């Protein structure tokens, strides 16, 4: 019960601090801009009138939009989770809470659950509004919109878990910076990996794959891209061969393997457990 109380408290804090209002307002602006941009693009060229061309160009637009959104999610997840525990330690707020008969694990897991609810709801609503707007304007809907949203959630949850782990040990600012910096490293490693594959450089490919295992955000990003690509694009890329298909950060020929997804879930569970263990032994 304490876990749920802490989770709902995190949600209530977001609402009271007008985080939800701000997120809602920004989403409305983003969706409005998306609708306007797509409608302008459609009206620019006659070529857009062809359904297959609309699908192709709209899919590129959607993937670029998703990339921007994933960056916002990464920053949002890091800066939401990094102060979640650290700021309560810094301000002394936690000194009144933890003497209550609650487990420290419930406190950490409750924070995680509350933030996951916030991020998950934000991603689901924003993605639904964006896809609906693009569909209304262009008639195009990506092949796997729900899977894409779930992959983006996965990416956000991985980074949120990392930032929450940092929050049990270091100051808010430090935790946020660590999470964002590591996210950047993982993303760049993913980029380099595609280049390594294109040039058939096994050692760089192995090294970048290892970075991807240490922080598996890029696996989720690739899953999101794959879910947003029209099947014709994937088929064409695959026909051109593995190197060509993977040689773009925004064009993925296959979804992340089940093994990689299981690794990512395991990674999240292990880092969350480490957060609990670290916080259990922390002197306040």
């Amino acid at each position, binding site marked *: 019960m304490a876990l749920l109380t802490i989770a709902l*408290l995190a949600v209530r804090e977001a609402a009271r601090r007008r985080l939800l209002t701000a997120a809602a307002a920004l989403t409305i602006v983003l969706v409005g801009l998306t609708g306007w941009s797509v409608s302008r693009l459609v009206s620019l060229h006659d070529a857009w009138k062809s359904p297959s061309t609309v699908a192709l160009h709209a899919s590129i637009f959607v993937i670029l939009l998703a990339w921007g959104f994933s960056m916002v999610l990464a920053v949002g997840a890091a800066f939401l989770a990094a102060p979640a525990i650290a700021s309560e330690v810094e301000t002394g707020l936690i000194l009144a809470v933890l003497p209550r008969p609650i487990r420290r694990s419930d406190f950490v897991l409750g924070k995680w659950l509350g933030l996951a609810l916030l991020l998950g709801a934000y991603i689901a609503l924003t993605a639904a509004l964006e896809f609906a707007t693009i569909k209304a304007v262009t008639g195009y809907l990506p092949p796997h919109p729900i899977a894409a949203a779930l992959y983006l959630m996965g990416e956000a949850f991985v980074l949120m878990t990392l930032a929450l782990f940092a929050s049990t040990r270091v100051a808010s600012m430090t935790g946020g910076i660590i999470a964002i910096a590591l996210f950047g490293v993982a993303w760049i490693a993913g980029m380099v990996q595609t280049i390594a594959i294109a040039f058939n450089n096994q050692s760089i490919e192995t090294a970048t794959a290892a970075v991807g295992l240490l922080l598996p955000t890029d696996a989720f990003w690739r899953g999101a891209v794959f879910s947003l690509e029209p099947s014709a694009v994937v088929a064409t890329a695959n026909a051109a061969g593995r190197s060509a298909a993977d040689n773009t950060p925004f064009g993925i020929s296959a979804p992340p393997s089940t093994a990689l997804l299981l690794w990512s879930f395991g990674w999240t569970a292990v880092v969350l457990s480490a957060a609990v263990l670290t916080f259990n032994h922390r002197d306040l």
Partner: protein
Amino acid sequence: MNPQATPAIETFELVKRYGDAVALAGLTMAVSRGEVFGFLGPNGAGKTTAVKLLLGLASASSGSGWVLGEDLGARAARRRIGYLPELFRYQDWLSAREVLALHCALSDMPTARRAAEVEHALDTVGLARRADDRVGTFSKGMQQRLGLGVALLGTPELVFLDEPTSALDPVGRHDVREIIGALKRRGATVFLNSHLLTEVEHVCDRVAMIDRGRIVRIGSVTSLIGVATELRVRVADTSPQVDASLRRYGRVSFHDGWYVIHGIAQDRVPALVADIVAVGARVHAVEPHHATLEERFLQILRGPSNGAADDRSAGGP
């Protein structure tokens, strides 16, 4: 064993180190159930560290301790404890009522009881009229009152109050004394950590003085400050005979128009007054005097020389 038979707090050689720094250097003490126990010491003496160890907020480097018969930090004990931290901070985006309700929920209190508990706490600490205002709009004093309310939720058996009046005005301080009195009357144990020694002197049954992580004195307030062995007498129409009469009862000094007779037993006071009157002096006032807790505190921490009175030989005006 009957849980009530165990002390409210018992520690044995409790040590806390932060790296090379020793915050607590072997705390051994016992606090009985139903006792109001004062915990005094200068800044950095280890008071708050001790409270954190007792509450499970920090773990001991060595030694052992029990609170309400349970190991330090045990949830079973924390369910029966109230705590007002020295650094009192509550969610400033919640109302006072919501903060109290939150702590009821975190305490596993039955839902049916919560509303009544919250109202009672609000009334007790005088926040009923501001119950629905956000904590962020409260003064420091009001936030400390809220913290007291939080500490009183759920009829705790043991209440830790860490500097409970640091932000309060005289009315607030009086209210805290009343609250501590009420806790004592219902049999709760109060562990009071305070710099305000007069406050401690008024409300505590026993006191421990801590310095550099160790207890330097522990005992009842009376045993620490001692029984009155000094008598102050204001006399008109003094004479050498008066001085001589007074010297028969102890060493005599003279301060600001008062004779001070040191080491006099209280049962000899009537005879002393009679003697002075017999030699023709008029007695305006007679006051037994004992050291305050503050004086004893300073004596103990600084050594006797600093707390000694500025005696001089007796001599009338």
